[in-house]
């Protein structure tokens, strides 16, 4: 394996790496996938057992390296002693402590980055929700349409056929009419691969309750079914079942009804010419100083989960594609010195790091997330949440409009899981009623309950819990950056990321609107709102994600959408990649994944990641023929 010259080396085995390897393998190309984490576990038993046992059932809870011990639920393991550390929710809570948070900060200037990802075979799709929305046309032209943010170097029309391939590849269940109703454009006669997921009672309650609601900033407010990557029918070619509503999509679908990249990865590995190597961490790329072509990727290997390095070396290929997600990719590039690079940047030359792919000085810049506003309440009638997939519908009708000149747009996710995310229910309300506390506001008199009276009260509360999640568009800002820590490393000696991250006023205006809209919605449907605005000092867990804006207190949550650190564009001084996703500096280096997005828009990124990957595959194969 070491001496072979591959056609393509792909770093990362998440959805982008898997789709790309599959498309290239189909055409007989020699591909090596390099994955930092462990291989695909047998069945999903190991992950499921860890998940069921976990006390904090966060998105990362089933996956290695484990961050909690059962006897000490609040102490994540030290990222310095892990071989594939990554950001986690306990890491966000303890953001200022590098022995608990993988990401490091100057806490005086930065907020906490609130999202994480996984470094394992199959990547973060193990714990994605499955939401597969297309972008809207205007999402690609924010600068020319609204005078804010930047334009993409491609349009919606450039991606239309690739969205179809992505929907087929993932197996998206959806309904065309519900998407067209708020402005998505499809080719005539197009159908989703399978019928939309059945709406929940919670969805139906919102849908009928919102009838007659006045528009907000001229945008109508109505419910749309969410196209999602989970099976409503079975596919002969895949050996996985129809969704059974396990209500644990995040962090893990117990039956693999929800798509995850191991499906495509396994397909790819059936080709003789596709190889994969696990537990191999790419640390940097080697750049030929004469040609500025990438000549190799350097790696460190390990055998024991968090044991010592057991080997190192490099692999070579004709072309290299980084698909390691939006924080690990800039980490690799920033760790690859390139004295021969010609700076071509709008920034002060002195501030531009001479490393791989960085003529623009923007490697690691424009880090974005969907910063989320959560609102929750009790419906006036029983709607029986905690059933079905975590979300089956949303309000998509507010994602676009003139208001985007002034404030960030958002989509609204309707949660089927009661107050699980919002307040840590069911155990928090249960604890309140049993122990006489009042953390969830359900026990204002701090009484202690038991027996039949407790059953009635619990049932009454749980069966009416509803929550909304506003995915607010974070605008790109070059100062929001991933750089390398000068002091912290992981167990293999690789520098850990240092993050500078704040929210713009544009995004904060989005929060103001979200708060108002949430209250208006609850009022319209006859629900009682219980959203709590936290004072900054109350809960240290929310310290890094707290902000105050125009006299309002907010906490932002992360949607798990890590975006923007190696953006594509038409201008090499303001982007890292051209519209073919090729580095401006290295002809044989490509990047794929959410790091290439110039803006985050209001849709979950995965479908667009997949679409861009199919497009990149086409481009690479065409280039190879020429």
């Amino acid at each position, binding site marked *: 394996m070491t001496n072979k010259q591959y056609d393509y080396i792909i770093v990362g085995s998440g959805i982008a790496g898997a789709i790309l390897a599959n498309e290239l393998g189909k055409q007989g190309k020699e591909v090596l996938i390099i994955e930092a984490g462990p291989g695909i576990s047998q069945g999903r038993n190991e992950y499921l057992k860890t998940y069921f046992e976990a006390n*904090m059932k966060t998105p990362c809870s089933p996956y290695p390296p484990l961050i909690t011990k059962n006897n000490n639920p609040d102490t994540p393991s030290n990222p310095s002693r892990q071989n594939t550390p990554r950001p986690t929710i306990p890491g966000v809570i303890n953001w200022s402590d590098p022995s608990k948070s993988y990401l490091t900060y100057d806490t005086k200037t930065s907020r906490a980055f609130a999202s994480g990802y996984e470094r394992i075979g199959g990547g973060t799709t193990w714990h994605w929700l499955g939401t597969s929305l297309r972008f809207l046309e205007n999402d690609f032209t924010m600068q020319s349409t609204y005078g804010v943010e930047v334009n993409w170097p491609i349009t919606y029309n450039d991606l239309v056929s690739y969205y179809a391939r992505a929907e087929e590849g993932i197996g998206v269940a959806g309904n065309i009419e519900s998407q067209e109703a708020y402005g998505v454009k499809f080719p005539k006669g197009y159908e989703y691969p399978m019928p939309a997921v059945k709406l929940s009672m919670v969805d139906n309650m919102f849908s009928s309750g919102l009838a007659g609601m006045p528009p907000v900033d001229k945008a109508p407010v109505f419910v749309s079914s969410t196209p999602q990557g989970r099976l409503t029918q079975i596919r002969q070619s895949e050996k996985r079942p*129809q969704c059974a509503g396990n209500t644990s999509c995040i962090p893990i679908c117990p039956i693999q009804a929800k798509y995850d990249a191991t499906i495509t990865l396994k397909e790819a590995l059936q080709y003789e010419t596709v190889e994969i190597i696990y537990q191999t961490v790419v640390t940097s790329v080697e750049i030929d100083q004469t040609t500025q072509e990438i000549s190799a990727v350097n790696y460190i290997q390990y055998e024991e989960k968090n044991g010592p390095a057991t080997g190192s070396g490099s692999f070579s290929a004709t072309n290299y594609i980084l698909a390691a997600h939006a924080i690990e990719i800039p980490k690799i590039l920033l760790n690859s010195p390139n004295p021969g690079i010609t700076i071509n940047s709008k920034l002060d030359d002195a501030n531009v790091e001479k490393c791989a792919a960085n003529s623009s000085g923007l490697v690691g810049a424009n880090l974005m997330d969907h910063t989320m506003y959560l609102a929750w309440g009790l419906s006036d009638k029983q709607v*029986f949440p905690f059933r079905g997939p975590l979300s089956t519908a949303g309000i998509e009708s507010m994602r676009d409009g003139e208001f985007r000149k002034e404030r960030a747009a958002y989509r609204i996710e309707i949660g089927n899981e009661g107050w699980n995310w919002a307040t840590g229910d069911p155990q928090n309300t249960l604890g309140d009623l*049993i122990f006489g506390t009042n953390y969830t506001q359900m026990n204002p008199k701090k009484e202690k309950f038991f027996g039949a009276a407790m059953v009635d009260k619990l049932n009454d509360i749980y069966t009416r819990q509803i929550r909304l999640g506003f995915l607010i568009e974070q605008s790109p800002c070059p100062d929001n950056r991933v750089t390398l820590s000068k002091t912290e490393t992981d167990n293999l000696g690789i520098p850990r990321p240092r993050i500078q991250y704040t929210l713009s006023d544009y995004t904060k205006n989005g929060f103001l609107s979200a708060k108002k809209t949430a209250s208006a919605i609850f009022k319209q449907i006859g629900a009682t709102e219980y959203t709590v605005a936290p004072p900054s000092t109350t809960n240290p867990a929310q310290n890094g994600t707290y902000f105050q804006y125009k006299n309002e207190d907010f906490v932002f949550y992360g949607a798990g959408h890590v975006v923007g650190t190696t953006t594509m564009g038409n201008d090499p001084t303001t982007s890292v990649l051209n519209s073919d996703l090729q580095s401006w500096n290295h002809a044989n280096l490509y990047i794929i994944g959410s790091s290439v997005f110039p803006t985050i828009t209001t849709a979950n990124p995965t479908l667009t990641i997949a679409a861009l990957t199919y497009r990149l595959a086409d481009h690479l194969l065409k280039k190879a023929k020429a």
Partner: protein
Amino acid sequence: MTTSIQTFVTLSAALTGISKNVLAPTVTNLDLPTTYFDAAKQKFPADFDLLLSAFQALIDSGKSAEDAVATIMENDTYAPVAQQINFLWYMGGWAVVTDFGTQTQNLSAITYQKGMVWQVMQSHPMGYSVSRYGYWGQEPAPLNDYIGNGE
């Protein structure tokens, strides 16, 4: 079932408000009463026995299980243990009450699946559906079907 486990089941039914038939069915795939009895004995080596004896004494004196529990809950020694047992049946693990809310320390993956809290909300444990596609679009069975008809 030993007499102390029988006492434990009667106490648990009155504490949780869930029928004995649900907590301790004759035909079952997991003997919860024994599992939880053993766990409680381990966690509260002295107080658990005292609680059971006190409860049984009240029953023997003619009180109903509900009245006996009400009395127990007014006792500062027994109440905390009883509360934890109540929580244990509901969540499948012990409660850890912090300044910012209650967390669970799961006994095992399987006791998590057997938590009664999911029955009380007429649903299933998150991560373990017992029904098939589409069930979430319709009302579930009535509450009594999940928790039994009380005592």
